[in-house]
């Protein structure tokens, strides 16, 4: 299944007054191109789901949005990404406030080798979000609660975060991210290791967060995409094939590839 080099995204990738705008973004890992000319707007207070087959570049694209790709030596990004109108790839931009504003939950849970408490408290501490110990305790508790982890860990807050189960680690990382209260949250498969109940809890959280924040979520579960997102973007081999309202994508996809993917006829 080969696709044209310069595919034009179908649907409505762009929109007025968006919070985040990606324009003609290409990403290379060394020689290998992983993202081809993607343009996509993400609106304030919306949840956008990024879906697509494994290896199609969802994580890569997501990582562009807060310049986490900078940390990979061989990774090279071209194009523009504007946050509230400012190009985040401008050399004068300080990535630190950027990343504090655009938070990220990674695909593989990566707790710090510190206590659970310190894992959560780290962000608020460096950003000076808590003025006192009590404040901080509160932030930690609140974040853990919202991530649905509080009950499981409340009596071992000072045990190492690395001693948690897979799903617990994932929720810890979510809690850690929301603890710094970013404006945009990027989530790379936040529920992949979670049971339905925990998943529901996180989906609830996403719904709740949407009121004040902008969220981009990578997911493999179409049900989840359907449940939490307003718009869905479909990636294929590094290209953005289609962006549309979620119900439209799942009921009447415009592009044949999207259709093939969501109906499971593939490969």
């Amino acid at each position, binding site marked *: 299944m080969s696709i044209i080099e310069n595919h034009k995204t179908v649907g409505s990738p762009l929109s007025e007054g968006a919070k985040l705008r990606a324009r003609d973004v290409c990403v290379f890992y060394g020689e290998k191109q992983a993202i081809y000319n993607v343009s996509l707007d993400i609106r304030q207070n919306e949840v956008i789901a990024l879906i697509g087959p494994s290896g199609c570049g969802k994580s890569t694209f997501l990582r562009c949005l807060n310049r986490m790709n900078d940390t990979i030596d061989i990774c090279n990004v071209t194009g523009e990404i504007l946050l509230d109108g400012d190009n985040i790839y401008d050399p004068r931009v*300080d990535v*630190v406030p950027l990343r504090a504003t655009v938070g990220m939950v990674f695909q593989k849970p990566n707790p710090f080798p510190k206590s659970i408490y310190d894992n959560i408290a780290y962000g608020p501490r*460096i*950003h*000076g979000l808590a003025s006192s110990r009590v404040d901080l305790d509160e932030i930690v508790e609140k974040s853990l609660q919202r991530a649905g982890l509080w009950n499981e860990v409340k009596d071992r807050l000072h045990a190492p975060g690395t001693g948690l189960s897979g799903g617990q680690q994932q929720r810890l990382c979510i809690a850690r991210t929301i603890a710094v209260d970013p404006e945009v949250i990027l989530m790379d498969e936040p529920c992949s290791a979670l049971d339905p109940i925990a998943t529901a809890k996180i989906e609830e959280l996403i719904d709740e967060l949407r009121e004040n924040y902008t969220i981009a979520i990578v997911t493999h579960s179409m049900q989840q995409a359907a449940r939490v997102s307003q718009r869905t973007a479909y990636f294929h081999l590094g290209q953005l094939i289609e962006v549309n309202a979620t119900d439209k994508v799942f009921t009447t996809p415009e592009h044949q590839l999207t259709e093939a993917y969501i109906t499971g006829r593939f490969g």
Partner: protein
Amino acid sequence: MNYSTLLIALLIALGAAYFLGRNRARSLAGQGESMHSLPTHYGALTALWTTLPPLLILIMWVMLEPRIVDALLTMQLPEAIRTASEAEVRLALSKVHNIASDPTMMGQSDLGSVAAHLVDLEQRAAILKGGVILSVILLGVAVTWRRIQPDLRARGEVERIVRIMLFASSAIAVLTTLGILVSVLFEAVLFFQKVSPIEFLFGTTWSPQVALRADQSGSSGSFGAVPLFAGTLLISAIAMFIAVPVGLMAAIYLSEYATSRVRQLAKPALEVLAGIPTVVYGFFAALTVAPFIRGIGESVGLDVSSESALAAGLVMGIMIIPFVSSLSDDVINAVPQSLRDGSYGLGATRSETVRQVVIPAALPGIVGAVMLAVSRAIGETMIVAMAAGLAANLTANPLDSVTTVTVQIVTLLVGDQEFDSPKTLAAFALGLVLFIVTLALNFVAIKIVQKYREQYD
């Protein structure tokens, strides 16, 4: 004010400035301003600006004050001395200093008045110094205090300063290299004017028996450095032959097999080996190991010289075990457990996991450790001088006595020397060539590491 008082003052200023800056930021934030950075960043910034400039001034002062004082004193010296040779002036100055430090002598010398002047100068310099430093401190506090405004990017500034300090630190290491190169190069060039580089690099006879005195003589002396390099190679090879397997296996055992108790005791115990003075190793090698080897050799009918490369190499190997074992243990320990799990999950034995997963993942660190050990082996002198002799034999037989480049450098430099004799200059030429050879060695090592580097995670 003397230097220790000033240093204490600086320390106090450091703490005070930190709190001042932080509290100012806090109070601004308390007034509802949204500060760009955390209060601690403002504190750190204030602390840096109040202590760094005076510290730099102080260092300059330490270096310049004696020169300026002496220049001023020189003008006070009697005409006769001043116009005489520079040596006279220096002598007089030394004398003035000595008189000044002993008040009872003040009146007894014609230089008494100059000494009194010196005492006076020193007092004034101390006051001036204290004043300057204190005002710079206050200036720093005041300026930074005023600069603390909501839009001051304190964190960025602090980080820039810290980054400069980090850079300066690594620059020191590079400057050291340059310094060494410069200090060796000049005299090495002189050497090569006397002895042809061809002879030096490819000659196979090393016998620096040249005359140092007009009334004395030696054989003409030959400076073929090949035996020295061969000896260095031989001894280092023997040492690495001990240290690498033993050190690496010990590191593996400690990090992968041993209980944490054993590890916590054995690792520091092995580290003690690196700190035993080399004289001790030297005696051990010369008086215990060498006769032992000789005894064994003779019992099987081999002709073993009483000084052997083997004895020195073996003992040197023991000395550098901890370089390999401890540093490797650290990097092995840092390999994430998930990699081991992946291997065990496939049914690999511990040793297979270690050899094929853990060691490759830890390879850059291990190579670093081994290179450090090799370096130490090449740089060691005492053991070789005591146990392997000083005779430059060109041989690959570990039972023969050999010598190394470093040993020759040291013996040439501490022996009876003369600044322009090739015998002394040879030390510098050897140093230069050794420098280049090890540089090449390191280059190769880095290339190997880059080629085989396995980045986990």
